């Protein structure tokens, strides 16, 4: 048993507990938090390299064997996402250390709890444990969202907390419904039992599957359930918004895991459960997000809509393109997480360099450092809009190609190309508004971004450029990940294969 596997959860948890005792000693908390996140990055690189070989790793907590105890499972997908979380977290943390973390007492502790929840959600192999980690990451995100207070943040928080609490209630209903029919909570075991379920249970299984899709849709910000996101993300502080770039991906991850493992589309009682919903919903999400971006009045709001658009694009790819689409969607997921988190950081730097006009999209004073900020904005806009030779372009190309043989090809091509055009228009309009249509004086409140603020932004943009340079090995990896996801039997065998006596026990009350 590889004990490294539990570190991405234990390490932030212990660091957070330690940080709570440090109180207001800023230097100490910063150092602890930074060291812990750097170690987390090293651990996730090592886990990623382990997962990249294609072998599954399981970690039975307290050594209880799989379907009876809680297991952590590492496969290519979770390895990738844990690594991505660590990269984004390190960037957000370095940025937060330039001043944001002094505005409240427990920023670093909350930040570490957030990482614990996210990593736990990616690694766990147990459905109820997934719920618990969702709650951990949610309560940390509630506090982080409000971090710094202010009226707008509080207003956005009320909506965010209310919809997520309702989502948690529905999640619990779905989980217990599934348990009442299958008698297990282990995801691999669930997959096995669901595949062999009796005909009279199918209706309940299908309804709990759709409820789960709804719950994960809230987290991922899918069409009818995304209205909380623009207000929440655009009012969060910059490092928090940058970290939240990975949060919608938690929902996407859960949808991917469930549609490939427990409710596979091609066979079993749950066949054709999610496809009739997922593709249309994803297309509508993408189109509405592009329109929302066009209508945005602030730069941060624009980027929040781009986050929603990225979720729409990933789920279109996943639901329309088969294995190749899954691979393209994963490529797009890596690209969009990195670039969105860079954009949220950049937006605040631009806002500060403009002074009191902040990130409002109207004519304002001249920026401090217009050249370096302008180049960074141009580069980021090119990448996020997917112009040729950027990582976004490669990802969208893979998605469009994967949808070629599908019958829904006109819809996929139409929505992705039209939304790309909208995003391009809105970004060029925002860029010319901020950098060109300015008065000749700078504002007295303007603050020029200093060197250390540039570090995370340049780092994240550099990661996006590296994605282009190393596109071929990365594509091999996403192909292999998609292949692994679409053969759930491997996952089931790796998790519960060694436990032979795992037939569901008779339900209580049935034996009279």
């Amino acid at each position, binding site marked *: 048993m590889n004990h490294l596997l539990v570190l991405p959860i234990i390490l932030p948890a212990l660091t957070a507990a330690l940080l709570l005792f440090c109180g207001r000693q800023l230097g100490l908390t910063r150092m602890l938090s930074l060291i812990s996140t750097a170690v987390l990055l090293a651990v996730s690189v090592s886990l990623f390299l382990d997962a990249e070989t294609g072998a599954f790793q399981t970690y039975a907590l307290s050594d209880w064997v799989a379907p009876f105890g809680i297991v952590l499972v590492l496969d290519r997908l979770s390895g990738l996402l844990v690594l991505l979380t660590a990269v984004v977290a390190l960037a957000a943390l370095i940025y937060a250390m330039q001043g944001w973390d002094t505005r409240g007492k427990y920023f670093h502790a909350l930040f570490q709890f957030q990482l614990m929840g996210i990593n736990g959600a990616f690694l766990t192999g147990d459905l*109820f444990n997934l719920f618990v980690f969702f709650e951990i990451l949610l309560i940390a995100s509630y506090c982080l969202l409000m971090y710094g207070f202010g009226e707008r943040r*509080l207003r956005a928080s*009320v909506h965010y*907390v*209310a919809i997520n609490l309702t989502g948690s209630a529905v999640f619990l209903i779905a989980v*217990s419904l599934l348990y009442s029919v299958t008698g297990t909570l282990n995801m691999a075991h669930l997959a096995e039992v669901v595949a062999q379920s009796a005909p009279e249970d199918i209706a309940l299984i299908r309804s709990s599957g759709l409820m789960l899709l709804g719950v994960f849709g809230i987290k991922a910000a899918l069409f009818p359930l995304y209205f909380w996101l623009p207000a929440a993300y655009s009012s969060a502080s910059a490092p928090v918004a940058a970290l939240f770039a990975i949060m919608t991906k938690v929902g996407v991850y859960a949808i991917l895991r469930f549609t490939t493992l427990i409710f596979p589309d091609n066979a079993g009682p749950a066949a054709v459960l999610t496809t009739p919903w997922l593709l249309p919903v994803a297309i509508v999400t993408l189109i509405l997000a592009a329109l929302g971006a066009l209508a945005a009045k602030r730069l941060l709001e624009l980027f929040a809509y781009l986050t929603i658009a990225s979720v729409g694009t990933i789920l279109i790819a996943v639901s329309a393109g088969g294995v190749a689409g899954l691979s393209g969607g994963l490529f797009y997921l890596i690209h969009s997480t990195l670039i969105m988190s860079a954009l949220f950081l950049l937006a605040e730097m631009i806002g500060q360099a403009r002074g009191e006009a902040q990130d409002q999209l109207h004519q304002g004073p001249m920026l401090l450092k217009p050249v370096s900020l302008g180049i960074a904005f141009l580069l980021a806009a090119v990448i996020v809009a997917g112009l040729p030779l950027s990582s976004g372009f490669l990802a969208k190309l893979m998605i469009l190609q994967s949808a070629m043989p599908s019958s829904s090809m006109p819809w996929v091509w139409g929505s992705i190309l039209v939304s790309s055009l909208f995003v391009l228009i809105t970004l060029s309009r925002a860029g010319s508004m901020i950098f060109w249509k300015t008065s000749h004086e700078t504002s007295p409140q303007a603050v020029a971004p200093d060197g250390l603020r540039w570090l995370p932004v340049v780092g994240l943009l550099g990661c996006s450029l590296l994605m282009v340079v190393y596109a071929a090995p990365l594509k091999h990896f996403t192909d292999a990940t998609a292949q692994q996801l679409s053969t759930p039997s491997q996952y089931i065998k790796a998790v519960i294969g060694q436990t032979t006596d795992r037939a569901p026990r008779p339900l*209580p009350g049935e034996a009279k």
Partner: protein
Amino acid sequence: MELLLSTALGIVTACGIYLILRGRTFSVVLGLSLLGYAVNLFIFAMGRLVSGRPPVITEQALSYADPIPQALVLTAIVIGFGMTGFIVELALRTRHETQSDHVDGQESKPEQEGKRG
């Protein structure tokens, strides 16, 4: 017992959903708590309604009371309690900062202010 439990669950859930859809933070908080209670009972019921049975399967026992949903309910109650505490504090803070207990932080129709009280 089945009829009693299912009607109780249905009524509590319906009240909870109605309250969540109201415009004031206080009713939303109440609604979320009611929904939480209903969900906890629901989880409990998903282990089947059995009484007077041991929670452990033995050779002699003819039937058993499923212990897992009971453990799940405990976890859900603890999480729900924490979340309720949090949203109460959040609602108070919002009321304090925005001078309004509307969920949007502002009155939607100022002319109806008097009527609503």
